[in-house]
């Protein structure tokens, strides 16, 4: 009887931990997942406070430093372009006219506020979303992995 009790305690505790872990997992998959969007999908997919990855091409001639010292540039998917503001150093391979992914938040009527900016890494490696954005625009060239 005693042994059975002890076994029951262990199984109950294990079950509780498992339920907790599953709960956390579902919560995480609901709230902590980052969606990838193109500029023209922004209005449809953005929710207040949700972290998004905005992918597209940096529009030529739009990179500038705003009056408050924050870097800003426009990202386009060919249909729509969005102003992105980023308070930090742009990555080494950030170029106008090339693919970029900005991770951050957006609210209607305001610029996209980036917390992180990812650019192409080298000839063969680029963030997957950049490649996807280029493909969607029909600008994909080369045989590098998608």
């Amino acid at each position, binding site marked *: 009887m005693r042994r059975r009790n*002890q076994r029951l305690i*262990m199984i109950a505790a294990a079950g509780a*931990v498992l339920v907790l872990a599953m709960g956390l997992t579902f919560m995480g998959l609901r709230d902590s997942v980052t*969606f990838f969007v193109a500029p023209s999908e922004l209005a449809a997919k953005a929710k207040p406070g949700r972290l998004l990855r905005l992918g597209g091409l940096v529009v030529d001639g739009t990179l500038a430093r705003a009056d408050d010292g924050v870097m800003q540039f426009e990202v386009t998917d060919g249909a729509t372009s969005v102003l992105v503001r980023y308070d930090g150093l742009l990555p080494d*391979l950030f170029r106008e006219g090339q693919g970029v992914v900005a991770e951050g938040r957006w609210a209607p009527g305001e610029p996209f506020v980036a917390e992180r900016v990812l650019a192409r*890494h080298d000839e063969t490696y680029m963030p997957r979303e950049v490649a996807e954005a280029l493909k969607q625009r029909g600008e994909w060239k080369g045989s590098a992995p998608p």
Partner: protein
Amino acid sequence: MIAEIGAFCAALALALSLAQGVLGLRTRGRETRAAAAAASAQAAAALCLIAMACLIVVFVRSDFSVSTVVAHSHIDKPLIYKIAGAWGNHEGSMLLWCAVSALFGAMFAGMRGAQSLGLWSKALGVQGFVTAGALIYTIVLSNPFARLDPAPLQGLGLNPLLQDPALAAHPPMLYLGYVGLSIPFSLAIAALLEGRADQAWAKALRPWTLIAWTCLTFGIGLGAYWAYYELGWGGWWFWDPVENASFMPWLIACALIHSAIVTERRGSLASWTILLSILGFGFALLGTFLVRSGVLTSVHAFAVDPSRGIAVLVLLAIALGIGFGLYAMRAHKLSQPAGFAAVSRESMLVWNNFGLAVAAGVVLIGTLYPLLVEAMGGGLISVGPPFFNLTVVPVLGALLLLLPLGPMLTWRVGDARAALKQLAPAIALALITVIVALWLSNWRVMPAIGLGVGVWLVAGGLIYLWTRMQRGEGRALAKLALLPLAVWSMSVAHIGAGVLTIGAIGETAFRSERGIAMVPGESVDFAGRRISLMDVGQVEGPNYAATRATFRVDETGRSASLVAERRLYPTSGMPTTEVGILGALDGDLYVALGEPVRDAPGAWTVRLYHNPVVQLIFLGALMMALGGALSLLTLMRRAKAAA
């Protein structure tokens, strides 16, 4: 010519491993057949090593008639990276996989010990088929010796990010770990075929699990260290799918090390140990698949050809199908559970296993979820640090909270109250840490709890050492020296886990970061230091050109100089960042040089990071690997004493 010798050796090794597989699985009790299987294993290993050596020679001689060399090497590359280039690509790394698998098979063939003929020869046979599967894949789908006609005069060069000493050693270490899990898998299948998994079986299992886990720990630690100083982002772990691919087998191997102890010492948990052995190898194969298939695009994904990914998936399905199928049919015949109480050494190890397995499951879900969503047409998503910090960290944290209790409890029935009493100083110290951290960090609860857990682990490990010392006689130092190696290995690994926890929490929660534009001669105050940009100039390296910035760092009472570079490798046209790191007691000052500022002539962007206690992360990982190595030494000594 050398390339052909390599290809021929690989083909010959395939024939021999198939022979090893058939002979090993069908000994019918005859020693001669088992001996033939063992001899085949050793010959296959020798041939695989010759093939690997041929590939290295081809790389060192820059033989550009071999297509792998063209794609991944260059005449100007320093020798060490020509050698490392042999496994720094998809084809070569698969050959390395085969070579390690064959090598472990040969070592297993030479170390029969007290294992019964049936178990030993069957495990040898399964291992033969594992090697054969890997060789078929390599020869048919990714032949590293394929010729190119006409041969170009120059190669394309190795990705400059990978031209680094830590990264030269990183893939072989990880492969030793991944493939090291194939022997536990083979032993598990053999046990299921024989219908027997006794204490001698667990004893045979333990060293292989330890080798795999130690190499994985060391390899992952090296990778994290490389990411820290080479990528120039100040981070060391990004929950990147490729990192997760190595973390999952690590978690399972860690669980397996502990459950195998229970099976060896007490005979219980045998079927769970078998399940973990199958799962561990499954995760190792899954890791290979994720990294090599190009499903995830990253620096690691070499293979572009989808047929390769499908082939790895087929191999994975075969291994897991056979493993789980046999398990479902045979496992119930094995279980001979020796009882234990809810509070005992065994129960603590069960909790350890449970926590690690749940963590591995959560990591698996987070890693595969984006692939699943994309396959179902749900668009592109990414599951990153926020998810894993929310899920994996609490699970592992709860597990670590229990850890110091385990060693303090006895087998079968433990006395929790006595153990907690002995651990009281550690509890007090941990609580003080939490309170002080709360106070100093302006009430940031999670980091304070994390630091408390780390201190609890370190102090608990020290108290365990102390209680074991009390059993000895003589002076304190003599008692310390006389402690069994097994006590040391466990304590070093567990304290290492605590050190790693303190480092990881401290660095993540309290790092500071700043990006500024600097002109030579300008100074900035950062993290209690004054940092001055002295000079920016050009230097030439062996196969790159670099912009080098020299900084002076003044703190109260001392000053030092620091160099950060941006390198451009003309062969790939790709810039890399060589950060300058200045270590101090409170952590690293980490300086990365950016690009010239667009609208300010003469100015450079500079990223400054202060990473507190970051060294403890790598020290902790090293201690854990050292603990694994010491434990392996213990087992080897015991085996020698028994022989």
